[in-house]
């Protein structure tokens, strides 16, 4: 039972999902850009008109956090739903089940790439220019992908047994959004909480990369190594949980 065309299957499933998601909507693919931009618009109005934070280039600061957080939340939610949406495939044919998770993450990655281009427009529009520090994006995005794949594998395989998880995860993502310095600066929070806030690897990624590309603050090696090890652990936990549970998916769905 050797089949070697899994890359084509992953691509095909990912593109199909991307096509279907915006099918029949007037604005089509634009929605994948509009969603985070509209969230940005709402938050920007509230936090620059009603409330004010002392942050240089606040729109760029805010949009970066939103783009990264949306990528994480849409990917993990999408991965959970992908197993349910593809139940008929799981029940009727064999292929490694992780293909569904990878292709779901690939779908949201297209959206992320588009959103990141929009962020770059804002970045240049604000008069900022990339320095060598921009290269820090590369290792941090690799770490971000590792976390997304790891968390997706973990929660999607548990979700098949415990459907309550999608509601719980939705609440946790809300909580995570607000305890991460996305709309406010870290300095806004009492210093004793900083350690705990930055323990969240997504918060760490947003904080470090934003500092590097916007304020030329180079992240410490401990920070990079720490978040890398953390994401490696998440990836392993996700991988082994998924590997243990996936042979029974067809029965549970």
């Amino acid at each position, binding site marked *: *039972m*050797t*089949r070697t*065309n899994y890359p*084509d*299957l992953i691509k*095909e*499933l990912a593109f*199909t999902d991307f*096509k*279907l998601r915006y*099918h*029949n909507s007037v604005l089509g693919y634009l929605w994948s850009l509009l969603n985070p931009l509209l969230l940005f618009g709402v938050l920007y109005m509230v936090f620059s008109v009603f409330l004010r934070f002392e942050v240089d280039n606040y729109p760029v600061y805010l949009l970066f956090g939103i783009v990264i957080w949306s990528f994480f939340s849409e990917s993990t939610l999408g991965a959970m739903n992908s197993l349910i949406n*593809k139940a*008929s*495939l*799981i*029940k*009727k*044919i*064999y*292929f490694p089940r992780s293909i569904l998770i990878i292709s779901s993450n690939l779908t949201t990655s297209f959206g992320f790439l588009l959103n990141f281009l929009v962020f770059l427009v804002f970045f240049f529009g604000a008069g900022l220019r990339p320095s060598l520090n921009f290269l820090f994006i590369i290792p941090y995005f690799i770490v971000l992908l590792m976390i997304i794949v790891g968390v997706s594998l973990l929660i999607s395989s548990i979700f098949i*047994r*415990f*459907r*309550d998880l999608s509601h719980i995860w939705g609440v946790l993502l809300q909580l995570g959004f607000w305890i991460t310095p996305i709309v406010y600066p870290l300095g806004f929070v009492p210093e004793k909480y900083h350690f705990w806030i930055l323990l969240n690897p997504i918060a760490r990624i947003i904080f470090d990369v934003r500092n590097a590309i916007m304020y030329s603050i180079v992240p410490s090696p401990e920070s990079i190594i720490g978040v890398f090890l953390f994401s490696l652990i998440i990836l392993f936990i996700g991988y082994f949980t998924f590997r243990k549970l996936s*042979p*029974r998916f*067809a*029965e549970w769905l």
Partner: protein
Amino acid sequence: MVIAIQLDKVSKKFRIPLDKQDGLKGSLISLLSGKANYREFPALKDISFSVQKGEFIGIIGPNGSGKSTLLKIIANILRPDHGKMRINGDLSPFLELGLGFQGELSGKENIYLYGTVLGMSKKEIDTKMKNILAFSELKDFMTMPLKNYSSGMHVRLAFSVAIQAKSDILLFDEVLAVGDASFQNKCYKYFKSIKGKKTVLFVSHDLNSIQQYSDRAILIQNGRVVANGATKKVIDYYSRKQSTH
């Protein structure tokens, strides 16, 4: 003789939930009350048989006897609780024709989608596109969304893609009950053409087509192999048994 499929005392039980209690609450209740929230249903019991390479096997039995479960285990979709299984060769299961078809997408897009689901590469599909269009006779409908296809066209498209699979072991589960006479005729020709070349397990309630194609038949009842041998004998035995009930 080369063995393509060998099953040795394969058993499978399903857990049937007593109440519909998915989620945390259901698990908590069954955990706290200390009672299992399900009963076990043995779907397959000690199934043993082997299939030679190139054999065409008909599998018959009443509804709920375990035929589909058996195919799913052979296709690696379900994991057996006990027993050993050996598969020798590439395998394609056709438990549903047009698996993964998307009504919103065009005929052509669905050919690529279904083809890759069946394990073909994009390149392979490109080279086989001519055959697929010719066999399905749907060349003029390729840009039409699948939801506007009739059910006959739907099956024709699916079957035309399915027969491109190059695997040497094919599993069919009651997939040819539809289509008009000319399409049925095409299917008949296709099965004739693969007979002896590919190993086929063919589940059907249509005893005529079982009789027509199979070298051998296996009767399954209540999760057990009840008869295994010459097609005519097994079918006669099954018919006699059914009429005495």
